[in-house]
């Protein structure tokens, strides 16, 4: 038994392995040397999927059964030839029972019904009536977050920057913007339900109607599947940040606040992960072992992950290439001894 943490960086992926104690780590890699690794997932059958990209050679999805031997899938997500849209990056891969989903830049959702081998666009979202008015955030116009409701795979949430959250209740046939209660960031002249810059979303594993949202304009929670959002920032030094992770066992939430959208660095050079154990009602620093001074990196939206063990392991990858790991739900952290390229995404899994 052990844990594998896969770290996707700007120059390849690295595989970090440890026993369940998660004190000593072995670092392997790089996989996909020279390629950005932008999304990582593991399907129920144990197959790993990775989103790779190059500024020169474009994006694709790769599969592996053992993290050593990888094969590019038969047909990665692609926009039609001759169309206006360009596919720049795979932002998110969500394996699901009947269908896998992938979120991409330029913002769109793709679905695979053959376990990730071929992908087709989810046209009702990609060609949503508002899509002509979608505008990018600083990270591009990207569909970066996907949640499929475990109660019904017909309900799906997507987060698009800088557009907002969309929800479908009919398996992707129709989509509705769900941003009420969140301040708009780029107001459109015609469509008042878009122009919101969601950074990350997470579903409460026990109260499944509850969705948490790290937004450009703060931290929010919805208790009605995204219909209305309320601000939950009690104890946070800043509402601004990118990632949001949730321990499925204890429901502890983790965020990595930064100093405002103007600066995007830890506040006063002190980096801290914040944790909420009460569904976002209050937040407290969980920072022992993290740098208390001279820290001026950021944590990107896909770079904070949990492993689901008891106690929960938490993994935080920085833009300066350090990965901090906690084997006790954030009570104490250690830097894993490696210096990697800019960390884009982190995923953690248990291994038999």
């Amino acid at each position: 038994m052990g844990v594998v943490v896969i770290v996707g960086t700007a120059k390849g992926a690295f595989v970090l392995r440890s026993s369940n104690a998660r004190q000593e780590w072995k670092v392997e890699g790089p996989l996909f040397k020279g390629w950005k690794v932008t999304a990582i997932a593991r399907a129920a059958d144990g197959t790993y999927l990775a989103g790779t990209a190059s500024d020169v050679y474009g994006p694709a999805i790769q599969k592996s059964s053992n993290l050593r031997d990888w094969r590019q899938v038969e047909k990665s997500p692609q926009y039609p030839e001759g169309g206006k849209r360009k596919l720049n990056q795979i932002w998110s891969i969500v394996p699901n029972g009947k269908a896998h989903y992938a979120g991409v830049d330029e913002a769109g959702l793709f679905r695979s019904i053959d376990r990730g081998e071929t992908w087709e666009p989810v046209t009702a979202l990609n060609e949503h009536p508002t899509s002509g008015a979608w505008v990018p955030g600083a990270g591009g116009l990207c569909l970066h977050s996907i949640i499929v409701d475990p109660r019904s795979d017909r309900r799906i949430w997507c987060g698009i920057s800088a557009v907002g959250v969309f929800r479908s209740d009919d398996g992707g046939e129709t989509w509705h913007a769900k941003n009420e209660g969140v301040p708009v960031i780029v107001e459109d002249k015609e469509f008042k339900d878009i122009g919101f810059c969601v950074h990350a979303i997470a579903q409460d594993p026990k109260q499944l109607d509850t969705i948490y949202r790290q937004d450009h304009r703060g931290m929010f929670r919805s208790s009605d599947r995204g219909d209305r959002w309320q601000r939950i920032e009690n104890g946070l030094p800043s509402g601004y940040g990118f990632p949001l992770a949730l321990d499925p066992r204890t429901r502890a939430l983790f965020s990595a606040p930064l100093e405002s959208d103007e600066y995007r660095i830890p506040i006063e050079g002190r980096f801290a992960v914040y944790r909420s154990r009460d569904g976002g009602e209050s937040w407290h620093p969980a920072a022992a072992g993290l740098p208390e001074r001279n820290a001026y990196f950021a944590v990107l939206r896909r770079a904070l992950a949990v492993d689901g063990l008891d106690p929960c392991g938490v993994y935080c990858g920085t833009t300066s290439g350090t990965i901090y790991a906690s084997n006790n739900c954030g009570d104490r952290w250690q830097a894993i001894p490696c210096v990697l390229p800019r960390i884009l995404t982190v995923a953690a899994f248990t291994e038999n």
Partner: protein
Amino acid sequence: MARIRVLLPSVMAAVTQGELEFALDADSVALALATIARERPGIALHLFDESGGFRQHVLCFLNETNTRWLDNLDAPLQDGDTLLFMQAVSGG
């Protein structure tokens, strides 16, 4: 029909399971590119974008000649010719 060699940049080995060279039969550069797109879509994905043309920073050389300098891609091929793909070297 000419038999030519196609050479890919080394960085692509990571996504082609190590394949960096292959042969194909074609009468012209245009037909060679069409053959790659049809028979090797997983490689074509990385060479061509949604416009149907080369990705912005992908260069293609027919032997010593940048194919962008050719009047058109109907340039005939001969046995032993090489199509070399590489990334444009620019920036610091």
